[in-house]
């Protein structure tokens, strides 16, 4: 995929530590040509690149795309140590990793190749050998679905479709060569990569890649880099809204990965300029996005029009409150530049159960002026951009001594997105005194931060449906009363 304009000398890629103009990318790529050449690595060897938001990682990523390698892009799991080589799927012949440089390198060649840091490569001990099929490997990007608590799946995107996805985003968001784009979201996810970073590179914009973004780091980078476009999560929009003291108009802010609260949307728009929502998935890439030309009301209510080549349909379901839910159903999507399909760890394609149509598992409406996304269908919520399955939280809390059963429901909003309530039933014969604050404290050891319930409520019994299952709807209806009641006793 050729898309870098190597002649631009004023536009840069930066990560705060290292800044490189587009015109200095060529020598880095030539070094990489020698590096792969020396090791007889060619396009038939599938690779795995461990990625963070840094210029060195971004350069290797761009190289692999421009030289049409097939590779998996992944991030280091939070609990693995620096020394351990991360485990990569058997279809990947080599793993690539980049040590961040402690100080700025003196020459371009030192960015990736320095005596004691830079690009590291290792042969995968689980490698299964070259693809036996005579078919030539189509350049492919592999990603894992986020599945923050569920099982992540491997997804294959052809470079060709990825490119079209990137073009869609650059066009819809009206990105320009003079833009300065702040990317505090990870570029190893398809939102940061395919909607932010690569479209920015394609139009030749300057780009600031930020790692471990928080308010303080973001404001520091903002002062130094002076961005006019930013790619954010809704939670980070709220962080900026609460933390930033003075208004600062951006040309455009894009938010994706979660729902933006209505009050946040208007306030953000007032203080930081045009905000648009983008809707997509690891499988489909960008499905829809708002346009800066849409009115505030449309940008707030919808995630914009579907991208060119995208068809949407609704699978309507019956709800008790039919009038309220009219025209609402599960969204299905057919994308002419979506993914090739899921694959297994050996790289073999897995058959799709639903053909060309992709089930988003989101509730929504298809309107004339854009797509409206209401929320996840199943028992899960999106918190801080991460999907939380109620069942995972329930299982974790049930592992605490003295707890018999746990049911998680969601209602209203907390600082981290949808508010989570965990109803806990103590075991009948327990000798342990079950105290809500202790349970919550335990949760910090058992669950990732975003999956810890906001409220723990101890109950003796739970309302049941005639079939014996817990009546979650009834529980959801009574959470407010229970929380107030519990806090007062």
């Amino acid at each position, binding site marked *: 995929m050729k898309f870098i304009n190597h002649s631009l000398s004023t536009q840069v890629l930066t990560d705060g530590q290292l800044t490189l103009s587009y015109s200095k990318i060529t020598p880095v790529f030539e070094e990489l040509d020698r590096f792969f050449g020396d090791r007889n690595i060619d396009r038939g060897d599938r690779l795995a690149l461990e990625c963070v938001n840094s210029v060195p990682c971004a350069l290797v990523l761009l190289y692999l795309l421009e030289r049409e390698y097939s590779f998996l892009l992944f991030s280091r799991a939070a609990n693995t140590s620096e020394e351990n080589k991360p485990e990569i799927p058997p279809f990947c012949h080599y793993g690539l990793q980049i040590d961040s440089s402690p100080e700025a390198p003196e020459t371009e060649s030192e960015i990736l190749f320095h005596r004691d840091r830079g690009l590291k490569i290792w042969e995968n001990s689980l490698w299964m050998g070259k693809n036996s099929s005579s078919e030539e490997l189509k350049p492919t990007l592999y990603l894992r679905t986020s599945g923050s608590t569920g099982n992540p799946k491997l997804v294959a995107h052809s470079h060709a479709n990825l490119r079209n996805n990137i073009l869609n985003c650059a066009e819809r968001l009206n990105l320009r060569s003079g833009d300065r784009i702040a990317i505090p979201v990870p570029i190893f996810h398809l939102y940061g990569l395919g909607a932010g970073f690569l479209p920015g590179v394609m139009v030749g914009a300057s780009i600031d890649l930020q790692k*471990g*973004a*928080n*308010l*303080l*780091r973001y*404001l*520091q980078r903002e*002062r130094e880099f002076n961005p006019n476009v930013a790619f954010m999560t809704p*939670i*980070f929009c709220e*962080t900026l809204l*609460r*933390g*930033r*003291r*003075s208004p600062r108009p951006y040309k455009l802010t894009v938010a994706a990965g979660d729902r933006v609260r209505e009050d946040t949307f208007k306030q953000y728009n007032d203080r930081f300029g045009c905000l648009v929502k983008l809707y997509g998935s690891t499988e489909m890439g960008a499905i829809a996005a708002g346009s800066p030309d849409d009115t505030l009301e449309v940008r707030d209510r919808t995630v914009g029009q579907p991208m060119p080549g995208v068809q949407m349909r609704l699978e309507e379901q019956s709800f008790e409150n039919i009038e309220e839910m009219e025209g609402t159903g599960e969204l299905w999507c057919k994308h002419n530049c979506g993914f090739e399909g899921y694959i297994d760890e050996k790289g073999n394609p897995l058959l799709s159960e639903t053909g060309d149509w992709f089930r988003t598992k989101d509730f929504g409406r298809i309107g004339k002026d854009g797509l409206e996304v209401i929320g996840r269908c199943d028992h899960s919520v999106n918190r*801080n951009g991460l999907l939380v399955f109620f069942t995972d939280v329930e299982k974790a809390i049930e592992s605490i001594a003295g707890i018999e059963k746990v049911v998680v429901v969601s209602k209203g909003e907390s*600082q*981290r997105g949808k508010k989570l309530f965990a109803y806990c039933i103590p075991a009948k014969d327990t000798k342990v005194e079950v105290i809500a604050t202790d349970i919550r*404290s335990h949760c*910090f050891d058992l669950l990732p*931060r975003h999956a810890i319930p906001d409220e723990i409520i101890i109950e003796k019994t739970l309302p049941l449906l005639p079939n014996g299952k817990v009546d979650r709807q009834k529980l959801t209806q009574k959470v407010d009363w229970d929380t107030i009641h519990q806090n007062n006793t």
Partner: protein
Amino acid sequence: MDKTATDKTAMDKTAVEQLKVIIADELDVNLTKEEIDDNAPLFEGGLGLDSIVIVELISLIEEKFGIEFADTELSPEYFSNLHVLAEFVSEKLASRAKVAESVR
């Protein structure tokens, strides 16, 4: 040590203690006052305050100490550990007192 230097150290020390109370009692972090190390970084690899908690901490500091951060003061260097933060807070308090005096 002259008197102003001693005062300053004492002031910083009180501010460190007050900050610890804020973190332990008012932030959603599951840390006790005793578990908080003055010299540990506030973010990853230290106290582990995440992006959401930091915003909370800033508004609590403003509320409890009656000071206001400017955008330019919201910088990682002032939040590198509790000592540095306490020193910064004390300075803000001192300069506020000075302003109040000159107005009088």
